[in-house]
């Protein structure tokens, strides 16, 4: 553990020293790290996860286009180092405010928007080869979990089965959580908080002996890492319940293969075992949901096309069939469309039936 704590500090120091040496030599200080765009994301067919390719990007100080980002990167490194020095954690928002100030005698802010500091943090992960959490920077908690699991976190024992209507909210750093007892047999991860609340109210996890997890929108790293650990350490299958649209597919894609912007972290985040439970194009027919179709807009169509073109979907016949059916329908579906069959239809009929039949997309 101690070694792990020292690594980020050492990396940051080395990073700084390299630049100082360049400056002493009169060389334009240069930061070099892997390029984080789709063009440099490679799908590894063996591990079935996304990784970064060989392409590097250079960020130099004496370059008009680079100077500001160069400064921002160093600013964030400084903030991270000061957090590590006092052994405190800051949120992404905290870090943004720690960096946000105006340079004296100018009207230039070091950062104007949080997205700038967030980007700098992701760059710093690549530069130092340390994750955000290792750099003492945490994301906001966003997401809930419930199920028959007993854990220990920061000295407290927590029972996921006994946390009332809200469930346990998942922290951004789950490395130090110890699982004491895991009785559940599988995990359902859902895109929508509202659906999670439905299942929780119906005590679905108790009846089916499973774990229900949700994030809001895109899955946070804390949740992804938690799911990965449960999958690896307890071999729990993971089923994804998302809307039948481009964004729903991408949520599944991120969980299973890793995300494009965090391709360098796939090893710690991707869950190649994850399966897509629904909503599928076949569900629309089998459960007679066609009357709840929502017409595809231009933006839906272009997202669908992008996803269908991703390397990791390109050769998957089953998925290509889904994409084609969506295109033919010219429509998408929300999970909540199931409520038209009755408020508890999803927990009483749809999910048990699907899981029993093993109707998953891989």
């Amino acid at each position, binding site marked *: 553990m101690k070694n792990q704590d020292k690594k980020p500090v050492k990396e*940051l*120091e080395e*990073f*700084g*020293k390299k*630049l*100082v040496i360049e*400056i*002493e030599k*009169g060389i*334009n*200080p240069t930061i070099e790290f892997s*390029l984080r*765009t789709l*063009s440099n994301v490679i799908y590894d067919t063996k591990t079935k996860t996304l990784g970064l390719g060989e392409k590097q*990007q*250079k*960020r*130099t*100080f*004496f*370059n*008009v*286009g*680079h*100077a*500001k*980002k*160069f*400064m921002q990167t*160093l*600013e964030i*490194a*400084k903030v991270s*180092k*000061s957090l590590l020095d006092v052994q405190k954690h800051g949120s992404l928002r905290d870090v943004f405010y720690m960096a946000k100030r105006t*340079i*004296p*005698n*100018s009207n*230039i802010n*070091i950062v104007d928007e949080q997205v700038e500091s967030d980007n700098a943090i992701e760059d710093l992960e690549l530069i130092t080869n340390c994750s955000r959490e290792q750099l003492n920077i945490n994301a906001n908690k966003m997401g809930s979990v419930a199920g028959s699991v007993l854990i220990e976190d920061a000295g407290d024992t927590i029972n996921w089965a006994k946390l009332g209507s809200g469930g346990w909210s998942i922290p951004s750093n789950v490395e130090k959580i110890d699982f004491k007892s895991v009785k559940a047999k599988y995990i359902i991860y859902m895109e929508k908080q509202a659906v999670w609340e439905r299942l929780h109210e119906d005590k679905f996890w108790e009846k089916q002996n499973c774990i229900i997890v949700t994030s809001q929108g895109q899955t946070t790293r804390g949740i992804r890492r938690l799911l990965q650990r449960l999958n690896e350490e307890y071999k729990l299958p993971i089923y994804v319940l998302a809307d039948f649209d481009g964004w729903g597919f991408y949520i599944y894609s991120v969980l299973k293969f890793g995300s494009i912007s965090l391709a360098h972290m796939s090893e710690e985040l991707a869950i190649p075992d994850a399966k897509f439970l629904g909503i599928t194009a076949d569900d629309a027919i089998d459960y007679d949901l066609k009357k709840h179709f929502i017409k595809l807009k231009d933006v839906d169509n272009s997202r669908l096309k992008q996803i269908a073109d991703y390397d990791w979907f390109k050769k998957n016949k089953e998925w290509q069939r889904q994409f084609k059916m969506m295109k033919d329908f010219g429509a998408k579906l929300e999970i909540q469309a199931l409520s038209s069959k009755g408020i508890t239809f999803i927990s009483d009929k749809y999910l048990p039936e699907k899981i029993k039949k093993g109707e998953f997309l891989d």
Partner: protein
Amino acid sequence: MPNQEIKTEMKEIPIAYELAKRQKDISVAEFFTKNRHLLGFDNKRKALLMAVKEAVDNSLDACEEARVLPEINVEIIQMAEFKYKVIVEDNGPGIVKKQIPNIFAKLLYGSKFHTMKQSRGQQGIGISAAVLYAQLTTGRTAKITSRVSKKEPAFYYELNIDTQNNKPVIAKEETVEWAKENGTKVEIDLEAEYAKGVQSVDEYLKQTAVINPHVTIIYTNPKSEQVIYARATDKLPDEPKEIKPHPYGIELGMLMDKLRWTEARTLQSFLASEFSRVGSGTAKEICEHAAILPNTKPADVSRDMAEKLLQGIQLTKIISPPTDCLSPIGKELFEKGLRKEIRAEFYCVISRPPAVYRGNPFIIEAAVAFGGEIPKEDKANILRFANRVPLLYQEGGCAMTKAIMETNWKPYGLQQSSDSIPVGPVVIVVHMSSVWVPFTSESKEAIAHYVEIIKEIKLALQECGRLLGTYVRKKYRISEQIERANMFEKYIPEIAESLSILSNEKKEKIMQGLQKMLVKPEIKKEIIEEDSDDKLYKMDFKKENEESRQKTS
């Protein structure tokens, strides 16, 4: 109608005879009395300007013809609310006694109307029109003093115009003592109004000084403020020469007139003697192209043949008209004139080669002054000149304005909505020199829209524009360079602070290292790199600095 018929029948004399009794000559003077706006005297403010302008134009023409460096004294005195006295005095050759009454008190009397030669005055109307206007509005005589040499006395006249017969009326005639050895002094009392501003006497004299850098003007305005526009050069403009019309552009009617009145016996000799740049060889070629025998009698040339002749002229290659008949200002002097009256940071002057419209040679000169004290957000200030005379009125109707609006100024660093005057810190100057400037009216305020003239103006403006664009871009680049250097300078302490915390090295040391690199030229030469999300700019301080050094040296 039937009534009238009865009348006619009764008298048995057609009514036209009755009407004919009332039909008679209208005197030119009388005509202009009723149409004073045609000469530019349409309101009190403009009348003052016109009186000054006509007197000054005459003085300048006279001085230049006599090869004397002009020194003009202009004084305006307010006598009543709308009564002013205008005094213009020059150091010109003076006017011989006999001619003084005709020149100042007879309309359409002059030496310039019948010649093809560049001069300010053309028709011989100007100054006598001012005298006429003065007479109509104040009833006072024009007072003229003139002396041709120290051997002769100075003559003093008080003159009126007999508007019925367009003849001078001499109210007083005497010899006077005058300190000047030669020169002319004109004194006119007229109804007028004085104001400063765009179309004022002040502006007219200032622009006159710009376009005539060899002239000194001493001007005292009605508020007794004196301005001296000192000459910037002792070099007089080249003396313009008289020429014959050039065949290109001559019109059918004019050609037929010339054919009728010529003394030449054959068509070939007619062409060779009446036109410039046509020798007997070219004349023969024209006849061949027109399929008319060269020995045809000019008087026998019919309308159809004249038309063929015109086509023949167009088919024949004839060299451009001689340019020594024109006296452009020249790049160097034009720039001197601009520099002394307009405070800008960049000047460029373009002189076009001579061109021809309707058989008349002309030269377009254009200039652009940029930056400095010129207002930044306003429409471009346009200065129009014809034969060294400022044109202050009817900007909208002038070929020069049209050419400026039709030129695309955006590539040259100015703002412009389509087909309008550009916006920016710029003064655009156009000067047309010609043996005959085609004004749209007798008040000589705007140039007619001849295609050939507009084309030449545009070409001149485009040349100016390219130079301006180069300058504006360079200026923008340099200011961008400075901004960039400033940006790096501001970032350096922040970078040093962060690096100091990361590496535990001293902040000052890192700062010094970075600052050293900022002035080192090598580091400023950046190479364009491929990058996914950063827009890269090429930086090349070293080269830029060299360029700007060359510019200043």
